[in-house]
């Protein structure tokens, strides 16, 4: 498996405050890589930098060999970002929203239709896609946004707390969607403070706290290394 994303010595300062203190990791092709840690650990900042939303203070980030500082547009063409608290345009119907977003990646009607068809299948919202987004429940909006993020089959899907605010049933559905897409060769970088969710989804995980990566490995490796039944206990032992 080739490396899709390389992150090396990533630092981020907000004034005097150092939010990221030299983070390094890589994501391989077809891999689900999870960043786990408590609130304020630096997960969202890391994802936002890779998604070209924030600028890095120091370090190197490469996607398919393209440097983030030099080619942010190449990043935008090849990634898809699902923010933790995201919304869709309330006055558009679900279908119109998907079409609008698809046109940024390919303007040919055939390709756009392909993207939208895929999104319809992922979202599983049926006829409700013809209704305005303003009438959707939180779970429906999240599924729509996840469908939007995956419909273009990006090289790297960046998902920040993908099941945030969802009930059990919706969370299970979203996790299944992510897993099935990764099986098709899609790389996923996701973050969550729900360590059990990340353990279930990820091929490899990085434990992050106070802007530093504390450990990286497969969930199995980490559990064995720290003699813990799950990642929550692994995290507690590392921090202690």
């Amino acid at each position, binding site marked *: 498996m080739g490396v899709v994303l390389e992150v090396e010595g990533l630092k981020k300062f*907000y*004034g005097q405050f150092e*939010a990221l203190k030299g983070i390094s990791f890589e994501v391989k092709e077809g891999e689900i890589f999870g960043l786990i840690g408590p609130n*304020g650990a630096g997960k*969202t*900042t890391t994802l*936002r930098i890779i*998604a*070209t*939303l*924030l*600028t890095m203070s120091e370090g190197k980030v490469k996607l398919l060999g393209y440097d983030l500082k030099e080619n942010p*547009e190449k990043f*935008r*063409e090849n*990634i*898809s*970002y*699902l*923010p933790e*608290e*995201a*919304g*869709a*345009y*309330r*006055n*558009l119907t679900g279908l119109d929203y998907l079409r*609008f*977003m698809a*046109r*940024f*990646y390919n*303007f040919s009607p055939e390709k756009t239709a392909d993207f939208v068809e895929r999104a319809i299948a992922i979202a599983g919202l049926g006829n409700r896609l013809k209704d305005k987004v303003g009438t959707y429940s939180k779970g429906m909006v999240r599924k729509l*946004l996840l469908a*939007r993020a995956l419909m273009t089959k990006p090289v790297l899907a960046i998902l920040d707390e993908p099941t945030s605010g969802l009930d059990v049933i919706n969370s299970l559905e979203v996790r299944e969607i992510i897993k099935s897409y990764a099986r098709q060769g899609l790389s996923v970088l996701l973050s969550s403070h729900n360590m059990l969710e990340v353990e279930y989804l990820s091929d490899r995980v990085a434990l992050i706290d106070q802007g530093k990566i504390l450990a990286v490995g497969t969930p199995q490796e980490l559990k064995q290394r720290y003699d813990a039944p799950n990642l929550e206990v692994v995290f507690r032992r590392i921090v202690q």
Partner: protein
Amino acid sequence: MKKFTNLLFKEIRELINKQLIFSLLFTMIIFYFIGQVTRTEAKRAETARRIGVLDLDKSAISRGLLDNLRLVRFQIEEFETIDKEEALRQAREKNLTFLLVIPSGLNEGVEKLETKEIETYSFLRSFSIGQARYSDIFKIILETANNYLSNEMLKKKLPEISPENLKKPLKSRDFVIVRDKKAEASASAIVGFMYAQSIFVPIVLFMILIYSSQMVISAIALEKQNKTLETLLTVPISRSAIVAAKMLAAGLVGLLSAFIYMAGFSWYMKGFTGDLAETAGGITKIIKELGLTMTTSGNLILLISLFLAIMCALAMATILGVLAEDYRSAQSLLLPLMLLVMIPYFLSIFTDFKSLSLPVRILIYAIPFSHPFMTTQNILFHNYRAIVFGILYMLIVFIILVILAARIFSTDRVLTMKLRWRRREVVL
């Protein structure tokens, strides 16, 4: 380009929503309704000139006076009584608005050059504009009648002299000079006509600037409030294209809204002024003679000036929109921009910029939105230096603002800049 148009159409679609269409239609209907009512009232005041008359003199002079009133389209309703109270009662019963009482001895008074009192009674039944207009017209007619009576007196006493020459030994011929052109007219008539004709320009300008700015500031604030901005910023489209699409969409919808509002406003104003073309008479010819009409190139210059002012306002609103946390805070952030538009707007209506003191003038010229308010006058008086200065100044301000807006959109600031009064927040 296709990505840009994709975003532009989405922006326009988002801006033209049910609320906007409803508010535009509602305002137009209200303006149209008020305009129609006002116009009907005004017309009624002009046509229904029925007045009651109690002629207690029944002389040749009083008959002459009534004939004179009939000549100027007054419908006279005479009361065959000698009791004033009875005449008032009848006038009230017949729903008349005025009663004119000609005293006995009017003829004798004119013979002896004595002043006599004509009494007028106005039945005030409302405070409508029509009522006020009726009263004004009646006053003018009384003045005409007075003129007639004095002429009659003079003709009798001094038959060999023209009363007009005696009353007005000095007559004036008024000329107006604009640059090298001269025409016979009074300056006040020209100024009044130009004012009435161009009163819409600052209002249109004011409305377009405010509407467009409000559109763009709200569009950005709504992206933040609905949490759609982050997603938009990560799709493959340049940040400058996002800024440009938002500004252009807001500009177009703002322009459309302003024109719709102005159409309604012009219906409303017609209720007060009447159709300008109907009342202008020969003055339009004089205006042409003086070169005070806008040529095609003049209109083009005005359009360029207006366009640049809109662009400055949009760029400024884009920056303010980034500072807004949500839709509500965006409305308060619009206030400084509104103030910058309102200052030159009111000054252009109530004063001449050139008459202001130097420090105030510098301050006014520093506001980019002041220049289009001055453009029409500068074009008509051929002040090309001021026009070029204004256009160049707005262009420079626009370039600076748009670079600033694009830079903000290309950095973390688009997400981290938030203006909360007395508090600045950084989002991690």
